[in-house]
C-alpha cells in the first residue's frame, strides 16, 4: 500500500495537508521557500490590500496565560502590487494569496496584479476580527460576500477560497452566500474577537484594545464549525484554529476538512511543527491502514 500525504481541496492539489495560515511569517519569498522545505503543503500569505498598510502600533500580540494568542497586527502588508512583484520568481512553493478589501473591485484589482505569478489559490479574508471595513463587516454581510465572490470568480480561473469566522451574523449564512456564488472551498475559522487587560496598569494591552484570539483555546470552536459546515454543505473545507498536534489535524479531517492551516503553533513550537504533524499523520495512517488523507475526511459524521 502506498502511503501519501497528498490531498485535494476541490481543484487544489497539495503534496501535504498542513498549510501555513494567513498572517504568519508571510512577507518574504525566501521564508516561503524555507517553510516549504520544512514541510508546509502551502503557504497562505498575509492578507494583502490594494495599498500598503502599516498596521497597528505595538503591542500587536499578547500571549494568553491559559494558552493561545491575541493579535491585532492590523493587517500590515506591503500591498498586492508590491507583493506580486516579490513572489514573481516563485516556482516551487504552493502559494495561496490572501486578500482583504471592502468592495468587489478591490479584489478584482488585486487578483489582476498576480497575472504573472504562480498562485495556487486565492483566499478571501472575509473575517478579520480587528480591522474595520475589511474584516468581519464584510463577512457579516452575505449580499456583499456574494458580490465579492462573484467578482473574484469572474476575474480568474485560479480556485477561490473564502475564509470565514465568528462575527455578528451567522457564519453559516456567509458560507451559504459564498457557495451560492461559486466559491471553491471554505477556510474555517478565523481568529475570534477577544481582549486582554493588564491588572497592574489597568488598561487593555493591545494598542487596538481588541484583537483576534488564536491557538489552542479556539480549537474546539473551530472543529465545531468545520463539522457544521461539512454536515450542511458538500464543499471542500480547510480547517483552521488552534491546531498544534497531529491529533488536532486528524480531528479536523474526521470532522470534514480536507486540509488544515495553522499559525499560532509556529509561535509555540517554531517551524518544526509542520514536519512533526506530517509525521504524526503518517504514523496514524499506517496504524489505521489508510493510504490517503481522503479516506478519513468526514468519518466522524458517520457515527
Amino acid at each position, binding site marked *: 500500500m502506498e502511503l501519501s500525504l497528498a490531498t485535494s481541496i476541490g481543484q487544489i492539489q497539495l503534496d501535504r495537508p498542513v498549510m501555513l495560515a494567513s*498572517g504568519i511569517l508571510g*512577507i518574504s519569498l*525566501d521564508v516561503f521557500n524555507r517553510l516549504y522545505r520544512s514541510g508546509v503543503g502551502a503557504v497562505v500569505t498575509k492578507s494583502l490590500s490594494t495599498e500598503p498598510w502599516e498596521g497597528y502600533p*505595538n503591542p*500587536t*500580540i499578547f*500571549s494568553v*496565560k491559559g494558552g493561545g494568542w491575541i493579535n491585532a497586527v492590523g493587517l500590515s502588508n506591503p500591498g498586492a502590487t508590491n507583493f506580486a512583484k516579490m513572489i514573481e520568481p516563485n516556482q516551487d512553493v504552493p502559494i495561496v494569496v490572501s486578500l482583504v478589501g471592502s468592495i468587489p473591485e478591490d479584489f478584482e484589482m488585486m487578483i489582476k496584479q498576480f497575472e504573472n505569478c504562480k498562485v495556487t489559490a486565492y483566499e478571501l479574508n472575509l473575517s478579520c476580527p480587528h480591522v474595520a471595513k475589511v474584516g468581519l463587516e464584510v463577512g457579516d454581510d452575505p449580499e456583499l460576500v456574494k458580490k465579492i465572490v462573484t467578482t473574484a470568480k469572474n476575474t480568474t480561473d485560479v480556485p477561490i477560497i473564502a475564509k470565514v469566522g465568528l462575527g455578528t451574523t451567522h457564519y453559516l449564512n456567509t458560507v451559504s452566500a459564498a457557495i451560492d456564488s461559486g466559491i471553491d472551498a471554505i477556510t474555517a475559522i478565523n481568529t475570534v474577537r477577544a481582549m486582554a487587560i493588564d491588572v497592574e*496598569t489597568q488598561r487593555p494591552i493591545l494598542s487596538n484594545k481588541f484583537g483576534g484570539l488564536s491557538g489552542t483555546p479556539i480549537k474546539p470552536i473551530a472543529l465545531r464549525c468545520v463539522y457544521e459546515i461539512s454536515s450542511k454543505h458538500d464543499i471542500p473545507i480547510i480547517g483552521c484554529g488552534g491546531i498544534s498536534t497531529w491529533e488536532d489535524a486528524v480531528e479536523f479531517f474526521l470532522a470534514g476538512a480536507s486540509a488544515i492551516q495553522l499559525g*499560532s503553533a509556529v509561535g509555540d513550537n517554531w517551524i518544526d511543527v509542520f514536519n512533526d504533524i506530517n509525521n504524526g499523520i503518517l504514523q496514524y495512517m499506517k496504524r489505521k491502514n489508510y493510504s490517503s488523507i481522503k479516506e478519513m475526511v468526514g468519518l466522524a459524521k458517520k457515527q
Partner: protein
Amino acid sequence: MQRNNNHTTIVTIEKVIDETPTVRTLVFSDDVMSNVLPGQFAMVWIPGVNELPMSVMISKESGKAAFTVRKHGPASTGLFNILEGQQIGIRGPYGNSFDLKEGKLLLVGGGTGLVPMMRLLTFVKPADDVTVLIGAKSKDEVFFEDLANNLLENNPHKVIVSTDDGSYGEKGFVTDLVEKLVSKSHFDGVYVCGPEIMMYKTVQSAHSRKMFVQASLERMMKCGVGICGSCCVGEDLVCRDGTVFDGQHLSTNKEFGHFYRNKAGILENY
C-alpha cells in the same frame, strides 16, 4: 512554577541613569532578565505607548536587570521618558546568544549596540586578551567606556573609543578601526552590535580574513516569537534564528547590510 517567557510580567523601574543626553539606563528587579545570555532580548511594553525589542542590559546588583535606550522614535522616546516608580511590561528572554571564543577577542559596539557587548564581557575568561571598540558620532554620545574598563579589570585589555568627528578618542568610523586591527593581527573571535552598516563592514573585514565573527542583528519586531515575520532578513527570522548570526552565514544573506523592511513589510535600502 517556571515563568512562561511569552507572558508579560510587570516590573517597576527602580532607578534611571542618564548615560548621555539622549541615552538612559532603566534599572528594575527581575531574576529572569538578570540572567539572560548576551544577545538575547526582551519585548518591552511601555503602557499606552508601544512595545519594542530591547537587548537586556546588565546591572551591578544581582537579581536586577536594565534597559539602555536611546530616544529617537515615539516608542523609544516613550521608554526613555519612563520615571522611577513607573511600570513597564516585559516578556522574554527571546533569541540565541553569542558563541564566546577564548584567546584574543574583539568586541565592537555602536550606541545601544554596546548593551549585549557589556553582557558578553561578563563571560570572558581572565586569560582572554580583549579589545573593545566603542563607536560614537561625537564625545557627548560616548557611554559605557568606564563600565567596559571595569568589567575587564582582571584581563589584558584595551578599550578604544572612536568618534566620527574626532571630539573624543580616535577620529573616524569605528569600522575603519576594525579593518586596521584585523589586518594587523588575528582575533579568535570578533563580536559586533550596532548600526547595520557598521556590522556589515565589521563582518566583511573579519570574515574575509577567515576570522570567527558574529553580529547581533536588529529589526522591527511585532511579536518576537516568529509569528509576524516582520524581522525577516532573507530567510532568517532575527527573533527566532538570531539575534546572533555567524559571519559565515551572514555573508550568504542577500538582505543583510543592504535592506530592511518597513512597517508594511516592504524592503527598503539602508
